[in-house]
């Protein structure tokens, strides 16, 4: 066990380094294909959040915060919600709240389904950063506690 560096053992770190990019890419794939295959903003957002949580578990919290800090996560969470609401309100301008306006395209094509892909991306922002924040808050509370005891 390496006590100087934070995080887990060398095996875990190496495997994480290899897989974390793939996990992130897979999350982005799920988000972008949400309107033509199972999955979507929520599932993809969870996977994206998991890739950051993975880094945090393997390398310690500093390594994860170097990539995305709490302020940025909180900002993205609000931004995702506002984006989603804006898409819904834009639908209202052209007829009804949440109306799916714009080019519908062909079925089973990536660029189709009007506002659906955009909504999926907004939800992915919201869910990804929100889930990351939940884990960070629950973990950091515990860390603070242990530091007090010492």
């Amino acid at each position, binding site marked *: 066990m390496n006590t100087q560096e934070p995080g887990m053992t060398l095996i875990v770190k190496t495997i994480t380094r290899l897989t974390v990019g793939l996990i992130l890419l897979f999350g982005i794939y799920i988000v972008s294909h949400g309107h033509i295959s199972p999955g979507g903003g929520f599932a993809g957002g969870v996977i994206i959040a998991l890739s950051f949580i993975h880094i945090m578990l393997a390398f310690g919290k500093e390594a994860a915060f170097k990539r995305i800090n709490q302020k940025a996560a*909180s*900002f993205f*969470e*609000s*931004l995702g*919600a*506002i984006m989603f*609401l804006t898409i*819904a*309100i834009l*639908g*209202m301008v052209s*007829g*009804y*709240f*949440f*109306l*799916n306006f714009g080019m519908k395209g062909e079925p089973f094509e990536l660029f189709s389904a009007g506002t659906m892909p955009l909504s999926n991306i907004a939800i992915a922002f919201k869910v990804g950063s929100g889930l990351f924040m939940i884990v960070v808050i629950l973990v950091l509370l515990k860390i603070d506690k242990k530091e007090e005891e010492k």
Partner: protein
Amino acid sequence: MTNHLLPLFVIIPLASAFVNSLLGKRIKGFSDIISSIATLFLAVISVYSVFLIKDSGMIVYKVGGWAPPIGISMVMDGLTSFMLVTVNVIAFFISIYSINYMEKYTEKWNFYCLFLLMIAGMNGVVISGDMFNLYVFLEIAAISSYALVAFGTEHEGLEASFKYAVMGTVASSFILLGIVFLYSFTSTLNMADMSMEIARKGASCIVLLASVLFLMGFGLKSALVPFHAWLPDAHPSAPAPISAMLSGVLIKSLGIYALIRIFFSVLGAEPKILSIMMVLGVLSMMVGVILAIGQWDLKRLLAYHSISQVGYIILGIGLGTPLGILGGLFHLLNHSVFKSLLFLNSGAVEYAVGTRDLEKMGGLREKMGVTANTSLIASMSIAGIPPFNGFWSKMIIIAACVEAGHFAFAFCAVIGSILTLASFMKVQRYAFFGELKSTLNQIKEAPFFMKLSMIVLAVICVAGGLLLLPDVSKVFLGPARDAVLAGSEYAKDVFAALR
């Protein structure tokens, strides 16, 4: 274009909540201003919606352009606009009250964010015409209220919040289970469609099972007596504006409104269920007030009175007669006005004195004139002293009991009213009248915005009886009562309004 009013009730609080969390930390005073403006705008359009309903009858909004049995719909009828006025007007006054009151807490923007989310949830519950959508909005309001109860992160707040969250989650599970049973029976989630389908298929034990589950779930949310244990803990432990919000409107829009909407409009008013509601109402009326008399903590006493007054409302609505429903709805409005005023008073006292224990107060009238006078008006109103609004609604409920031949219930209502008077005489005697204690010489009256909202709510208390004038009642209370009485006509109206 007037149709676009309906989604605004959800859009505005949601948007301002997220803008608050985005910018509130960076710009000082921003969250105060934006939440006051948002709630003011909501209050104005909710009052406007009352006149809209009077002119055009029921309004149905197709979200996303999908017509009801398929898509989610938003439905506004008399009862909805009545509840919207109750929720949003009270929310506006509580919002300007918290400008001063919440100074002592850090992270005020978080408070406003959760507060606006709670309003979005409540408006959504009230305006939704879809069963599952109602559940989702109910959970939004409930989750933000769990967080708001624990907002002070004191010992009591956290403990109460845990208890409240556990009870609330169990209640939500019961409600979801009820929705599942109804879905399996009718294969639809739209309330109007569901109501038609139930009427077509006739009575079944699945509907009865679902009604029992709804009664338990919404009974837990509105703190009827066998399910009341969480309320006296949760409501006093929250910051005062949130206590006012929880007692004033949350238990009504989440509990009572949903009960009325589901039992009258969707399931059709069954006499069996109505008599259970009446018995539960009388039970909570008596138990709440008896438990309240022994309390020395000001906010806890008020919380027990909430249980008792909710009992009055449920009794009035459970009678099922036009007069009883009118009384119940009018008492709902009045209770949300005077109970939020009383909680705001208790907040002002706590702000100045620093305690909620009645034994440590005394003679506050000399130092805090506005608080003392408004609290006197609210106390007389809740106890049912003639010129104030509480008297009129209680009188209508008692008269409706007598008219329907339930003399025992009418007697219980009178006894409950007398006991309420006794316990509020105790509050006035120990807190505001009598000798000023020497330790309290330094206290000051509450700041401007707190006084402002208390005074306006007190004026509504005094003038509330005017809502019963025939001309006014035709616009405001009448359509709400008719919407409840319409029962399963609701479904036909919804589909008629679509064309």
